[in-house]
């Protein structure tokens, strides 16, 4: 059973809503009445109830938008009982009630935006959609308006693993109130945004949540991330990948396919690129003198990465901040932060 407020809107616009459902059903067989009904009861209604508590006058508009957006999501099996993942339902049930006032004020912006963002995060291998939801649920009540909420969502998405948004998310964070920006990045207590921002900009492997005293150097190269997997296990690579660097971009090749690899302390993402884009680029195949490939693994500035568990190193590439290594017996790309000069 849905709430009285939601039921009243559904009843008042019954013919229109039914016609829309019929259209959606004819267009997309995924629009199952049972699934959509369940979505309205268990997900959309949570949002409508929350809005009803804060701004009851906005319920009709919010309910209509929730119906429209929900119908699209259920039709594409992105929400509701038959969904491919539960991220969108969870985002609706946790973020939107926390931001009920903002949802009430701008439902046509907030509902689609949050749904799309949750879908992006859920679909990106390695991204932590639950961390994003948790951050927004926690911080949404501190947002004065929908613009701030949407900007917060962008910064939190970067924090949740979408490393390719690093530059633009940093710019977005500049527009947030300082305390909100620091909270979105889980910065240590007492930090100030200009300092954190400067380090984030210069050092992709800088973790703002880690106290300075824990940033100690070690004799071994520490693995920051391993990216990719065998396609048979749900990854992207059909054979052990090879890495190359073009300027500050890292490229990965597996078979005859290419990806650009973006990575930082928050996560790593792969983006398919046309072969032409890589073939025409000037590839930097030579390694800096301080990087050596040995029988034990890879040595960089006298620190060693033991790769014997992954097989022999078959490709190594560096940017100014990152070393990428791939090995003969692994479908991963190993990423290491550049060690300090000892």
């Amino acid at each position, binding site marked *: 059973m849905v709430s009285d407020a939601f039921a009243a809107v559904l009843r008042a616009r019954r013919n229109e809503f039914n016609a*829309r459902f*019929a259209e959606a059903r004819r*267009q*997309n067989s995924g629009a199952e009445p049972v699934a959509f009904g369940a979505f309205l009861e268990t997900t959309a209604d949570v949002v409508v109830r929350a809005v009803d508590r804060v701004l009851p006058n906005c319920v009709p508009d919010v309910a209509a938008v929730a119906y429209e957006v929900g119908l699209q999501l259920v039709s594409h099996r992105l929400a509701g009982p038959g969904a491919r993942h539960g991220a969108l339902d969870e985002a609706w049930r946790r973020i939107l009630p926390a931001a009920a006032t903002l949802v009430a004020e701008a439902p*046509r912006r907030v509902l*689609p935006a949050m749904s799309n963002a949750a879908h992006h995060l859920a679909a990106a291998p390695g991204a932590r959609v639950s961390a994003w939801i948790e951050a927004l649920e926690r911080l949404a009540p501190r947002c004065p308006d929908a613009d701030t909420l949407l900007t917060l969502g962008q910064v939190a998405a970067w924090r949740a693993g979408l490393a390719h948004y690093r530059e*633009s998310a940093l710019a977005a964070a500049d527009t947030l109130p300082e305390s909100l920006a620091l909270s979105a990045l889980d910065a240590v207590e007492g930090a100030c945004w200009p300092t954190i921002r400067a380090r984030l900009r210069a050092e992709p492997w800088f973790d703002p949540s880690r106290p300075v005293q824990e940033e100690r150097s070690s004799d071994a190269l520490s693995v920051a991330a391993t990216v990719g997997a065998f396609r048979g296990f749900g990854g992207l690579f059909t054979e052990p990948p090879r890495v190359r660097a073009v300027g500050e971009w890292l490229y990965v090749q597996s078979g005859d396919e290419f990806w650009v690899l973006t990575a930082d302390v928050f996560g790593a993402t792969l983006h398919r690129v046309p072969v032409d884009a890589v073939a025409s680029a000037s590839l930097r195949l030579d390694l800096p003198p301080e990087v050596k490939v040995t029988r034990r693994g890879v040595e960089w500035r006298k620190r060693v990465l033991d790769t014997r568990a992954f097989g022999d190193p078959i490709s190594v590439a560096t940017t100014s901040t990152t070393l990428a290594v791939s090995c003969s017996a692994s479908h991963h790309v190993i990423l290491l932060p550049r060690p300090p000069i000892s």
Partner: protein
Amino acid sequence: MTRPGIFQRLSEAPTNPHTPVAAHTFDVADLYRGPVGGDTTSSDGARRPLDEKLRQAYFWIVNTAIISPHYDVEYNDQPPASFLVGDSQVRLTLPSAQSYSSFVLLPLLTFATRRKCLFVGGPGRGKTASAVLMGVLAGYPVRDVRRAMQHGHPQMTIADLLGNPLPADLVNAQRLDDIRISWRKWLSMRVKIVDEYNRIPTRTQSALLTVMGDNYAEVLDQIYECPESAWFLTANDEQGGGTYQVIEALRDRIDVVVQALAFNSRFLGDLLTRVEENIRPEEVVPREIVFDEAEVDRLQDEIVSVEFPLDVRRRLEFFASQFELCEVAAEQFEYKTKDTARLAGADWHTLVAQDTGRDRLKDPGAQTKNGLSVRALLTLLHYAKAMAYFRGNRVVDLEDVRQILPFVLHDKLVPDTDAPFFDAPGHGAFRTDRIGWLRRLFDASCAEYDRLDLDRDDPVGALAAEFRLGLDGLTEREVRLRLLKIERLVTENAKGRKLFGNLYDDLLSLKYLHQRYTNYLRWLKTR
């Protein structure tokens, strides 16, 4: 916000794809773009290219709103497949590039350029529905668009059209200035629709002409300035004149004419769907394809800035030069025009019967009763730019002109259906098919232009270009040389050649240049 279902689906792929640019640019704003459409960022509208939005609107209308499976605006990027059908060997071509339905495209370009479009065709073919869609694209609620639509009828008065004086003011006013007018709401709208305009009485048509032509309304000395707007008029029986004959000036204000083509019976299933779903497309127009006032302003600016290259312009000039000449209309060279004969009320048949020695079958000028007005040419330039813009180009292509020209000149260039051209084998259909006739006329003009090799050998064009560089600093000797060149060219052109329209324009152009140099020479001498 995009609503679900076929009536809200927009074309997602680039509707006229061009080579993509910028690899590896990641914008966190993309986070909010995805399977659910909507106002995901406040600046989305400002960032989206308007030509793409216009194309999306076009494809939404043809795929969803108006069942018009007629791709009569044909583009080809390689030779199209072509078939001859039936005993009369009718040609059917399958265009090899993205082609369009004029019934949807022309109104949309009219909307984008804020000009005036006339829908013609029998009753119940979607003319009014298309016009209403344009109103909705401008952001007006369907109800407002319908209420603001003016329905022509034989009893329509100026007050019905424009507004009434307030009764209290009529009683109390001491001066005309004191009478306030309750203006009709439609006058303030950016999309104006006049249904069945040829049923409006002549006197009221004159009031409509003032609004259409000069963009203001006048009642009892009170003036209402209308905003710039796109006009959509409908007529069931354009050629026959409707209840009242449309005054020529009003007809001349119409920029393009589009015909509602016949319904294709293979699409009855789509009609059935609409009946069963009880859906009116104009009520479910996606918000993403609705243009606000600022966007239409921007559209106009961007369309105007589309380049019209010289080689295309020359062909249009050559085409336009063919029609005005009427050798027997006057003694003085400048007045040898069809307009002179028309103003004098001369009998057309008597005029054309006078032999000028030209081959009336080959002379394009012999096919028309008039020439092209400045307004018609201005409209043609506007729509050609709009067409190029719509296709995602920033330079007008000859094909843009070729495709748009028949719709602009539909009512502007009047055919003389008694001309020998229409009696020639296979030309009979052009008596009723103005679009086909005009396109053929333009093709023939371009072929003649090629035959004369005017792209490479255009001495009049070269002299005009030389003149456009300016007169400053020209010596007397140089001016005399140029005058001599002009006179030689006139002599050469006049020698043993028939006077066709293009030659007439060239000679007048040479006379203009000659006069400008003569005046300059006179000034040099008096210094």
